């Protein structure tokens, strides 16, 4: 070693004395950079090369297999099947969904893999004894997908994904632009002549530019194709990568050999066009996904938070995501509550029908609970937040609906099957096209085959169909109709036998005063006497006083169980009750009033006799009235192919009366829940059957039918038993539901038909050689854009009969 030379800090070779502090010396710039690079490495750096190290590296534990993680995020049932929801990244089209959902066929121990594309979620059911989650992750990684725990950073990952996609597009655009410029120069030379040296220079320049396009933005296709190859599955990236590689290699070979045509501009522009198309496709899918976020359709996305100390308070509008437990939020009349909370100031009427099924708003004051999704009807209130976002009652309810929405309708399974074969069929067709056109030269054959692969699109099959169901379910939720699963939508669109419960479904569900014969002031007295009554008939009479002038409060009210009420009003003795009570107390029964009472009884009403001081002075007819809209709704449903039947546990006469009033030809009264279930099972065996009834009392019948529609009770209880819950009272929502489902299916069939026509026509044009790959790349997103736009813009649930 020469005098003054120090060993190089990196490689140990002699180097000049360093002036750097710490006496670090480098023999050359390369060692200096290498040393700096090594010092920044975070991966385990093997011992320096001069020290032999043959120790095996440590095993690679997957954080997904951590027992704590599994305990927190997974659940294992009695059969030993573990279920978990994970975030999945790397999916960009419908075929990705098919590939991931085919996991059970590829990996033993995995029973189910269900993808929620729009949320980027994977639901797994697997046997931990046979396969670990880490193995599943590695298998998916080889296929090109990453899975991880669901976290709040999903949105950030989405932004990062978008950012990377835009950078790729920008680089591809720049490369395409430059490749085209160079191509123009070459074309100009073709006509006007060009010195070979310049021609070569332009060709090499194009090769460099296209090389960048292929190796950077174009790498997504190669990566996808490679993942497909490794996992042994077919995806669209495979043929695209093959085409890009073939085009690039052909042109590179032409450039190197100095013979033949080059297609660098085509390859570069194709990469750019494909990336733009894919980006547009993903954006529109995400836009569609955002628009069907069930929770967003029921709760506001922002809230007005009260900040500052007492006396210096101000209200700021913030995202619901920023709201924390303990915050105070202000809700104005007409707005929905964005959170679950407790009223701390103000008093208002709250419409919580979505959650409770109560048809009338409830008055709430300080200390009362309010729930996200409920509507503040009358006055501004402030609430202290007890739960927000996913922790709210409505969010848990929507999670129930969303989980069930993964249930695939038969038409979606059909689309899946067809879509699975689609790609393979297109690849076979492309191969045939290539062979057919091979006589015109390899590049011509390649161009035709690429055009075919690019222009044909399984989007409407794989994406638009499930998207339409999801959208329909989301739109329905916005109208207070909660639907569990696309299969329910398809059954409701098919027609068949529709059984309706009587009480609360075809009738209003509460006793009302229907007829009154006698002096009106006496009705006010009767109502006053029944004010404290808890009997449905008494309640109906008491409610009738709302529209009458106030009457003096009776004294000495005596309730006679099974008979009625006796009260003293001033000097008179008033008795209100059954015919038996009236006959016992009345000296004379007015024949006209008695006849009226008997006639009402024949209509299914309960006759009430009013005796004053031993004289029958009035009679009333009380009953559960048929809903005003029931006849028209039933007629509309029958026109749409539904055979309507009444199935009730009530008295046969009352049921017959309601059936006549509604125009229903077949009915069955006095049916116990078990009988109802048996009847429904029998009908379901014969064809499509829908049961509309009470979510609690008719639970068995609702479950036995193809689709159970619950119209009573709270949302949670109803959705536990039924497939559909109608939060709004009346029969109009039932018609809206059936009509909306029909529209959804009609739209799906149109989309499928349009997609088939498009693909057949596009394939024919491409195979016949009338479509350039770049035109194909531009047309491809248009098809999916059209399909998805039709879905998103469709108004599925809108009409009333």
């Amino acid at each position, binding site marked *: 070693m020469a005098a003054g030379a120090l060993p190089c800090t990196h490689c140990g070779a002699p180097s000049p004395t360093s002036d750097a502090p710490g006496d670090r010396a480098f023999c050359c710039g390369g060692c200096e*950079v290498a040393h700096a690079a*090594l010092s920044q490495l*975070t991966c385990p750096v093997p011992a320096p090369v001069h020290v032999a190290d043959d120790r095996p590296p440590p095993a690679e534990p997957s954080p997904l297999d951590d027992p704590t993680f599994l305990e927190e995020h997974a659940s294992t049932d009695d059969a030993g099947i573990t279920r978990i929801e994970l975030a999945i990244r790397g999916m960009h089209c419908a075929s990705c969904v098919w590939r991931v959902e085919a996991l059970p066929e590829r990996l033993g121990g995995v029973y189910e893999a269900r993808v929620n594309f729009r949320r980027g979620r994977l639901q797994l059911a697997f046997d931990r004894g046979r396969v670990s989650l880490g193995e599943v992750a590695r298998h998916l990684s080889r296929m090109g997908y990453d899975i991880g725990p669901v976290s709040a950073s999903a949105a950030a990952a989405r932004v990062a994904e978008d950012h990377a996609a835009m950078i790729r597009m920008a680089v591809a655009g720049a490369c395409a632009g430059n490749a085209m410029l160079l191509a123009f120069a070459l074309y100009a030379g073709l006509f006007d002549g060009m010195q070979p040296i310049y021609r070569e220079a332009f060709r090499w320049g194009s090769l460099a530019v296209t090389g960048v396009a292929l190796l950077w933005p174009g790498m997504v296709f190669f990566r996808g194709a490679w993942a497909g190859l490794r996992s042994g599955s077919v995806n669209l990236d495979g043929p695209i990568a093959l085409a890009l590689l073939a085009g690039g290699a052909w042109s590179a070979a032409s450039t190197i050999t100095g013979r033949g045509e080059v297609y660098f501009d085509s390859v570069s522009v194709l990469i750019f066009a494909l990336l733009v198309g894919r980006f547009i496709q993903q954006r529109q899918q995400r836009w569609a996904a955002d628009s069907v976020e069930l929770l967003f359709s029921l709760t506001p996305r922002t809230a007005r938070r009260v900040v500052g100390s007492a006396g210096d308070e101000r209200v700021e509008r913030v995202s619901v995501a920023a709201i924390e437990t303990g915050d105070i939020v202000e809700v104005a009349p007409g707005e929905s509550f964005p959170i679950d909370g407790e009223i701390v100031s103000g008093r208002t009427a709250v419409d919580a029908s979505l959650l409770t099924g109560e048809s009338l708003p409830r008055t709430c004051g300080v200390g009362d609970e309010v729930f996200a999704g409920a509507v503040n009807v009358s006055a501004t209130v402030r609430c202290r937040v007890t739960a927000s976002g996913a922790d709210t009652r409505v969010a848990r309810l929507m999670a129930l609906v969303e989980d069930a929405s993964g249930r695939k309708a038969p038409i979606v399974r059909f689309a899946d099957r067809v879509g699975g074969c689609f790609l393979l069929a297109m690849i076979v067709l492309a191969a045939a096209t290539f062979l057919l056109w091979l006589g015109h030269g390899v590049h011509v054959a390649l161009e035709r085959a690429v055009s075919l692969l690019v222009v044909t699109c399984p989007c409407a099959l794989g994406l638009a169909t499930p998207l339409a169901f999801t959208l329909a379910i989301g739109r329905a939720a916005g109208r207070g109709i909660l639907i569990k699963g696309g299969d329910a939508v398809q059954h409701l669109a098919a027609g068949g036998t529709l059984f309706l419960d009587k009480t609360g479904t075809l009738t209003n569900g509460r006793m009302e005063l229907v007829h009154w014969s006698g002096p009106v002031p006496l009705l006010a007295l009767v109502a006053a006497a029944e004010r404290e009554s808890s009997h449905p008939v008494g309640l109906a009479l008491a409610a009738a006083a709302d529209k009458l002038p106030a009457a003096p409060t009776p004294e000495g009210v005596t309730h006679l169980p099974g008979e009625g009420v006796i009260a003293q009003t001033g000097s008179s003795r008033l008795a209100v009750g059954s015919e038996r009570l009236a006959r016992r107390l009345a000296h004379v029964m007015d024949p006209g009033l008695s006849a009226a009472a008997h006639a009402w009884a024949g209509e299914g009403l309960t006759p009430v006799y009013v005796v004053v001081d031993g004289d029958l002075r009035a009679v009333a007819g009380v009953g559960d009235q048929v809903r005003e809209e029931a006849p028209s709704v039933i007629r509309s449903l029958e026109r749409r192919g539904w055979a309507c039947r009444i199935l009730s546990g009530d008295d046969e006469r009352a049921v017959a009366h309601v059936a006549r009033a509604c125009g229903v030809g077949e009915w069955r009264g006095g049916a116990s829940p078990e009988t109802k279930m048996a009847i429904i099972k029998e009908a379901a065996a014969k064809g499509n059957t829908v049961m509309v009834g009470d979510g609690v009392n008719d639970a068995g019948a609702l479950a036995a039918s193809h689709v159970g529609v619950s119209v009573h009770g709270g949302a949670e209880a109803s959705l536990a038993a039924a497939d559909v819950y109608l939060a709004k009272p009346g029969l109009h929502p039932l018609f809206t539901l059936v009509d909306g489902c029909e529209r959804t299916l009609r739209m799906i069939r149109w989309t499928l038909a349009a997609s088939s026509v498009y693909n057949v026509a596009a394939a024919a044009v491409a195979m016949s050689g009338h479509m350039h790959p770049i035109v194909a790349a531009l047309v491809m997103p248009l098809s999916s854009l059209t399909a998805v736009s039709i879905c998103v813009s469709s108004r599925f649930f809108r009409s009333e009969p």
Partner: protein
Amino acid sequence: MILSLCISTFLASLLGSLHCAGMCGVFAAIATSSLRPSPAERLRLTVLYSGGRLASYVALGAVSGLAGQALDLGAAASGFTDVAATVAAAVVTLAGLSHLATRAGIRLPRLPVPGPLLRFVGAGHRLAGDWPPAARATAIGLLTTLLPCHWLYTFALTSAGTADPIAGAAVMAFFWLGTLPTLVAAGATISRFAGRGQSFMPVATATLMIGAGVATISLRVLRPCHQSPSDSLIGTLLSTTCHGSAAN
């Protein structure tokens, strides 16, 4: 002629590649390390690492050749010929001489490493370090070209001297071939050998650099061979003498 240059490059690279073991051995070891150290896995990673190096070397050679060609084209318009080869040969020879001078204890100013390059290469390796083994091996291989190694860039200049992107790429491919045995076997054996060779390595590489410069001058400038840029690589490599049309 190009084939002669390529063979010379290969031999020089092979001899001088002990320098590579010192500088890039650690990277080779990182790139080929795996959690599943089976022979097949090690071979796969070695192929990826070496493939990454080859790709970036060939690209560097092509770009250098193109730059040389552009220099020649520009100079030709001004009436000068073989400027690229002359400049390349001069720079390589001077670099070799400066190394010898440093070895002899003469202190010469060394060009500082640009900060952005230092940061970029560091960031690239840091990023690659977190990737799966296959991607990491390829990335580290590709990044090797960015190390401002005088030995590597001597041959990049030689490539520029060919004034032809194909020939430039070919030179760098042969340079890669020369480094292959050393970096593939970057382990204890090579290290011990490199340790014994440390004293003569700087002299050897500097001498080889001067040799490369002289070879470029003699082959390219003193024995002009005006090859058409449009000639194919295969044709060029198969020809050990000057192109027929040029000879005529």
